[in-house]
Structure formats: C-alpha cells, structure tokens
C-alpha cells in the first residue's frame, strides 16, 4: 500500500500557497505509507540555456558553495545554488550531459534527484510529517506538485527507492501498486539507453515514459503505450513541466479520487487527503475510470 497525492493550480494567485495547501494532503496519507515520503514541485523555472538540478548528499553540512564554484569554473559558465537540508537546488548555464559527466567524475557521492528547468524532487526515508518539516514544504511556491507516501512491498526501504522517480527532464512519477513485468522491461529500456538507479518497479514505469517521450511521443501517446506495455497494478500520477496526469490500470486495483474547482485540480488515493483543500465542499469529486488517463497541462 502507498499513498499518492497531486495538486495542480489553475489559479495563479494560489502559487505562493502551493506548499501550504499540499502539506496536509501528504501528511494525511501517512496511514497508507509511513516508511518514506517525497514530493516533486514545479515552479521557479530557469531561463533558456539554464539547467536546474536537485542534488543530494548524505551530509547536511556538505560544501555546496565549493561544488558550485568548481563546476562553474570547470564548465566556464554561471551557476547559482540554494540548499535545503541535505539537498541543494543548483541552477547552471550548461548542458545536462556536461554537468552529469563532471559530477560523476568529481563528486561520486552526490546524487542527482531531478534535472530539468522547473522540477525539484525532495524525498527521504521517514514519516511524511518529518519529511515535510525537514524540507519546509509548507513555505514552498510553485504551479503544481505531486507526492508519495510509501509502504514498500517490492523493494527495500531506502531513500533511492522512495518516490517520486525522475528519469527524464522535468518528468517524474509516483506509483501506488506493483508492476509484474518490470525486470524484463528494465532490460529492454537499458538497451534503449535509459539508465536506472534502483531495482524498484516504479522507476521502470518512469523510465518507460521517458523513453516514449524521447522517441517523440506526446504525453497522451506515451500513456496509451504504457497501458499496453505495463503489466500489474497501478495508479500513477505523472508530473510534467506543464502539468500532471493520472492513470489507473484496467482493473482499477488501486484507489484514486479526483477533485476539480475553478482554482485547482487535485488527486489523491483517498478523499481524506483532499478534505483540507479550500472549496472542496463544492468541488466536482469523482473516481477516475480504469484504463483511462486524465491530463491537465498549461500551454
């Protein structure tokens, strides 16, 4: 069992309150996932030619300023950083391949949690409440956010195995369920050049979508293919640069509820997670259909 939650704002005026609105949603899903939690927030987009990364080091006193200076000098570009507990958001005017190469050569123990122009991923082992507080979720701003509370069934309880998973630019995924064909699929995707950090089944689903999008699929086409190629139980919420999508497996094994008002679209495993949202009493609330995907994106 796991809990998943997502909040996509339609009203720009609420962007400064995204974290505040989302924190109780995540914490209310503690019963479904007490062992780890994480979230991916989109906002504070970097300009053309810039890259935004979320980096993690086990040591909270890690010298991010030193790393940023060295990287900027080596790659001869501008860079900026901001740290949050043991994670840092690095903005750098360079291409992703050079940055990844430099980091893997000089800082093997620094893990890249996300890369793109807008996404930031923060996740840890522990109670959702502690993780929200560790990363000061309630003060965060942005356009949309998805989160996960984990009760592991298929792989180990580790930070690496916690959600959201990102394997592509500004793309991430949270999953409630279990995939039965992830080993075969992982091998196939590795041959297509997709890399994986863990043995986790959900990471394979994220990798699958990255592969389809790299091949030129729209999100809609990628999800259609996923319904054919992924075997198992799943309710997914997928974050993209411009929005989010929700999809359930054909037998609707895992729960999901959606709510929409003029101000937002919200998704959760259970209605309890939506109960704290403003105007929820009058929201359109419904259960997404099996084998159907729902997409909201800004254009």
């Amino acid at each position, binding site marked *: 069992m796991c809990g998943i939650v997502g909040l996509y704002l339609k009203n720009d005026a609420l962007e400064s309150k995204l974290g505040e609105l989302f924190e109780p949603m995540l914490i209310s899903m503690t019963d479904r996932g007490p062992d780890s939690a994480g979230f991916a927030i989109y906002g504070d987009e970097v300009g053309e030619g810039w890259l935004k990364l979320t980096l993690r080091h086990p040591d909270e006193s890690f010298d991010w300023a030193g790393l940023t200076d060295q990287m900027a000098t080596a790659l001869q570009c501008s860079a900026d950083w901001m740290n949050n507990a043991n994670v840092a958001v690095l903005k750098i005017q360079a291409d992703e391949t050079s940055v990844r190469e430099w980091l893997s050569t000089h800082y093997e123990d620094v893990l890249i949690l996300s890369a793109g122009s807008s996404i930031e991923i923060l996740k840890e082992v522990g109670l959702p409440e502690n993780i929200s507080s560790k990363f000061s979720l309630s003060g965060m701003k942005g356009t949309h956010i998805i989160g996960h509370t984990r009760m592991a069934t298929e792989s180990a309880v580790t930070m690496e195995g916690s959600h959201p998973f990102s394997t592509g630019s500004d793309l991430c995924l949270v999953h409630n369920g279990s995939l039965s064909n992830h080993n075969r699929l992982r091998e196939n995707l590795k041959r297509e050049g997709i890399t994986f950090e863990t043995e986790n089944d959900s990471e394979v689903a994220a990798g699958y979508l990255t592969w389809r999008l790299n091949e030129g699929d729209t999100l809609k086409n990628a999800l259609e293919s996923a319904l054919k190629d992924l075997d198992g139980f799943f309710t997914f919420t997928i974050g993209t640069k411009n929005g989010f999508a929700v999809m359930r497996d054909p037998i*609707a094994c895992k*729960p999901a*509820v959606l709510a929409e008002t003029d101000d937002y679209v919200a998704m959760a495993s259970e*209605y*309890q997670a939506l*109960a704290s949202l403003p105007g929820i*009493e009058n929201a359109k609330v419904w259960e997404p259909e*099996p084998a159907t995907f729902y997409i909201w994106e800004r254009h």
Partner: protein
Amino acid sequence: MNTFDLSTNTVTELNHALHAQKDKMTQAEWVVTNPKGSHNLAVGLDSELAVDIHGHAGYFCAGMNKTASITVHGNVGQGVAENMMSGVVRVKGDASQAAGATAHGGMLIVEGNAGARCGISMKGVDIVVKGNVGHMSCFMGQSGSLVVCGDAGEALGDSLYEVHIYVKGEVKSLGADCVQKEMREEHIAELTALLAKAGVEEDPASFKRYGSARELYTFKVDNASAY
C-alpha cells in the same frame, strides 16, 4: 436529534455512541458532520436509527448494517454497506468500488454512479443505482437484485448465481454465464416495487433483465475451457 461533529470527536466515539443505542434507545435520529472522508463511519449498527452523514465518507461506510437507515449526503469510498444484513443505506453522491459487497439483505441506493464490482458476491441485498456501475458488477452474485438505471461496465454478472439484474442503459459486456433474459410480468412487478421503494422514477418497461444461464453452477467437463 443528536448532532455528532467528527472534527471534535473520533470515529470510534461515533460508533460507540451509535452502538450504545441498542441497549437503550434514547435518541433515534443522528446527524454526523465533518466526516472528511473518514473510514468505517456508522458500521455495525443494530437498532432502528436514522443516521444522516453530511459530507463525503471513506471506506466501508455503513458496513454490516442491521435495521438502521443511513444516508450519506456526499460520496462514499470503497465497500459501502458491505455485508449489510437489513435496513437502508442511501448515498446521495457516487460510490466507489465494491458497493454492497457480500450484503445479505436490506436496500442500498446510490443516487450517483457506483464504481467497479458493485454488488460483488451479494447474497440477498437489493441495490438500486441511479447512474452507472463499473466493471465486474454483481460478480458471483448469489441472490437479491441489482437495478442499474444507467450503463453497466465490462463483464456484468460474471459467474452469476441467482441475482436478478435489471439494466436500463448499455451493458458493455456480459461476464461468463450471464445472459439477457425475457422480462416477464413478475419481473416488471418486482422492478416496479424496487424502484418505488428506492424512490427512483423510471419506467420499468425500459429495462432489460439479465440472469444466470446456470451453465457453470456445477462442473461439467464440456465447460472446462471456461474455468
């Protein structure tokens, strides 16, 4: 009338207060406010109470109900009125999966849509859904009746025993051993009574009846491929 506010009291306290009415009935009408999707609301009631829940309820609402009348003014999560024995449960909004699962008696009315597996393994309950039902509804249904005023999803009535199924709209597909049957006078009469009891205005003549072909009741070697 007694109002019970779930923003200041727990679900356990609510259920204890309702169960206490079985020994000595002091208050027959209850209003529950601020349910906020909580699970297990008003479960295991065993006296003639009228309970109105204002807001959305979570899983297993009104489960195992006996004689009470429970109305949810909102949506419910999975397993509403599961294993109900008697009484009436009315959902003003939508119901999630497995509504009325294994229920033995009483009546469940869903005024919106019901999700997948509505009436799974039902054993005598009458279920009336004003909207649609999802896939695998009435799976292994043993007795009682399921009335659907909208459409039914895939594999309706799979491995059905003796539930009487009436559907007004489209049926996406029928499950194994479920077939359309002739709507005779006694069925019109039964459906008329069910709709009246549920307070649903529909023309009984516009429904189709489905039931068991009784080919999978007992093992026949000719049917081995169907298992």
